[in-house]
């Protein structure tokens, strides 16, 4: 069963600067006279023990305060997750303050009622007031509230640490069951159609395997058939970069030009990884593959990667987006937008770092994904009917070297190559930025 997840206030414990009480002051100010001049976040300082921190309610999943309340005045909201006090029912017995181990609920002497943090209804003032990054407000609710049943069996016959498995599982949990999923020969085929494993399908959803060169065309036919019989069935492709950027590009470009109402997701691991790490047209400049070797005569791939998402956006289709599993909230929102499009085509380009082909530790896929975004190697953006918009911007972008150094496929690079790649990355990012400005 799905657990509920909510937006929540995160406190870095015990790292406040001495004598700062900005959070508590902001809280007192917001609550004003109506609620008594009492802050429900407390700044806690003691010089002698060298301790400086902030304390407030952590909105427990099974709040002890609610369990003990003799009038049932406290309950945890199922929609917001906020532990709330019904003032009409509160008798100020103080039992809640006796059982809360975190110091998150208080007895208000002036009002003779219990009182606690209500997250300011979703925009906590204390977080705005905190200048030291101790407090942050995490909004995971969109992701988790849209997650449906997990349609895939546990485990996957892929290389360990492969994020494509996680990504497909996530896509299915967001888009749901009443969808037809399309794939073509590649890593994800094993997941969807279960080749070589029993039971045959790992995904408990309607799937259809196409050829590498006709995914978008097949989807067109299926989608149109269902339209004709009066049913609106979302058709979703989850295919690799070889199929998308090389072999099936003609069919994809055709469907885009016609404006077919399909959702086409390309998981881009920047090579033909399933067949043994050969170059594709999205393999990056200087990247090592078995067909772009590194040695005396060759120095990785000679050409820059084909910028497929941009090409798709220039088709002028309804919705184009880039995404990674490093920023799931962003990915979830893009999938939800994609599902809502009923009058045109959707293309999502998902970066899918390949531990085997890119040569990194299987536990690092998320870190690599995040770094790709944070260095502008893979900017997160969307284009709605040609209007561009950056959906995430790192406050301080890191040099691309930090991304490059995470993977073994670039281990041969020299300073000169890095400079060249940095220039390419900067130019590509500037182009997206400019397009966003123009929109």
């Amino acid at each position, binding site marked *: 069963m799905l657990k509920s997840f909510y937006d929540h206030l995160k406190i870095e414990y015990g790292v406040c600067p001495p004598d700062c009480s900005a959070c508590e002051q902001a809280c007192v100010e917001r609550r004003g006279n109506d609620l008594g001049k009492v802050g429900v976040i407390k700044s806690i*300082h003691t010089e*002698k*023990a060298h301790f400086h921190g902030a304390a407030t309610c*952590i909105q427990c999943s099974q709040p002890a305060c609610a*369990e003990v309340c003799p009038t049932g005045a406290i309950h945890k909201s199922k929609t917001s997750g906020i532990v709330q006090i019904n003032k*009409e029912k509160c008798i100020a017995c103080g*039992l809640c303050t*006796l059982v809360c181990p975190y110091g998150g609920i208080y007895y208000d*002497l002036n009002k003779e009622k219990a009182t606690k943090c209500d997250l300011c209804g979703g925009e906590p003032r204390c977080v705005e007031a905190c200048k030291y990054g101790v407090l942050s407000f995490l909004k995971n609710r969109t992701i988790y509230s849209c997650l449906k049943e997990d349609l895939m069996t546990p485990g996957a016959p892929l290389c360990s640490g492969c994020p494509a498995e996680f990504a497909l599982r996530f896509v299915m949990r967001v888009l749901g069951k009443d969808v037809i999923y399309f794939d073509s020969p590649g890593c994800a085929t094993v997941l969807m159609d279960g080749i070589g494993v029993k039971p045959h399908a790992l995904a408990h959803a309607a799937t259809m395997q196409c050829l590498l060169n006709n995914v978008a065309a097949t989807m067109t036919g299926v989608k149109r058939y269902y339209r004709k019989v009066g049913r609106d069935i979302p058709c979703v492709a989850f295919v690799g970069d070889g199929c998308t950027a090389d072999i099936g590009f003609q069919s994809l470009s055709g469907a885009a030009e016609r404006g077919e109402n399909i959702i086409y997701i390309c998981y881009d691991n920047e090579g033909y990884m399933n067949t043994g790490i050969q170059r594709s047209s999205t393999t990056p400049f200087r990247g090592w593959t078995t067909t772009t070797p590194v040695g005396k005569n060759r120095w990785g791939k000679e050409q820059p990667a084909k910028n497929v998402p941009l090409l798709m956006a220039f088709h002028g289709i309804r919705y184009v987006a880039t995404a990674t599993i490093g920023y799931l909230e962003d990915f979830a929102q893009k999938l939800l937008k994609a599902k809502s499009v009923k009058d045109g085509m959707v293309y999502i380009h998902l970066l899918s770092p390949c531990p085997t082909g890119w040569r990194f530790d299987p536990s690092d896929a998320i870190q690599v994904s995040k770094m790709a975004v944070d260095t502008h190697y893979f900017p997160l953006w969307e284009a709605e009917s040609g209007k561009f918009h950056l959906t995430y911007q790192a406050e301080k972008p890191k040099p691309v070297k930090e991304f490059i150094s995470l993977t073994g496929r670039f281990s041969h690079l020299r300073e000169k190559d890095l400079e060249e790649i940095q220039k390419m990355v900067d130019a590509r990012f500037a182009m997206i930025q400019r397009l966003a400005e123009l929109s």
Partner: protein
Amino acid sequence: MAATKRHIIIGSGSAALSALERIRSITGEDEIKVITKDTFLPYSPTALPHLLSGRIREADMVMRDEGYFQDMGCACLKGKEVSRIVPERKEIIFGDEEKERYDTLLIATGSRPVSPAIKGLDAVGFISFHTIEDCRRLQSELDRMDRKGKVAILGAGLVGMEIATALLEAGYGVQIIEKEKRILPLYFDSEVEVDIRGICQAKGAQLFTSKEVTEARRNNGKIEVGFKGGSLEADILITAVGVKANTNLVANTNIRLRNGILVDSRMKTSVEDIYAAGDVAETPSFFTNELGMNPILPEAVTQGKIAGTNMAGGDNNYEYEGWIPMNLFNFFGNVALSVGLSQPESNDYLILKHHDDNKKQFKKLIFKGDLLVGAVFLNMDVSPGIIHYLIKRRVDVHSYQELLLEKPKEISYMLMLQTERKEGFLSRG
């Protein structure tokens, strides 16, 4: 899949409800039935004094609302009394000989007030304040009473003092009679008692301590309460001299019993598949491991949770660690708090305290070895739950004893945080 079980809970107080919620959170399929002799929705006696003070209305007092039992997928038989249990056949039998079968049974029948053995008491008519009916009766007697009339309360424990506070807030004259030397004798020592007494007296409470009541009689329509060396007159007499476990139900079974039903650390009685929790159960003390009664709401909730978990076959390691006395007395804008051992008698303890007469503030900490074992506070800005946590989790406070007295709020928070980050919930954040 295992066959579904049938759980029966007798009672609808705090222990019963927390057991029910636990069972439901572990199993969605098992059948659960709550049987209560109450005809009212579940409520707690803790809330009753505040009906008198007018702080809440009767409708706001219920712990769970109308749709609750249905939402929990649980049948609730109201106004039904179980007359006996037949463990051999796993059956409970109602007054009308109707039967009900169980797989697991929870006895959470709570407690009732002790009627003091005082000459003439029954004849004068008194109110023992424990149910909503008692409360309604008192309210109607108060309404009939002359505004200059007085209420006498027998017993200056927490319940007696809370009724007194509520009546004083509502503007009635109140006299409190206590046989011990001090009010709230179990929780507060003489030093802080002076302050509490002073504040109550300033609000009009008349306190008669060291007065063991010997008789009660009617005199010209008034009630005369006699004690050694004197007597007092009142219009209404309320008794609040403690509670006694409702154990009648198990009288003719093999379930072991002392002052309450004896249970093990999983709240199981001496008979298989029968559990007990809350005021009816007799459990070991957290500090001494000796069996005893500590009928307070937070312990009832914890015991209910443990009983429910074990009944549903949940976490087998969830065991009861023993009760910790804890009391919080809110009176006229003051807060007196006592957690753990408040007045130990042996010399094994280190006691640190500080009294500020002007601000009516008091703090006292009791340590045994490296551990905090008790605390008493009056009007201090401190989180009671964190103090409770430090005691219950046996947090090593060795190097912070003096500082903890000086800055109880800050140091207790810091120690809680350090412990949690090492092993608890906050470490995940």
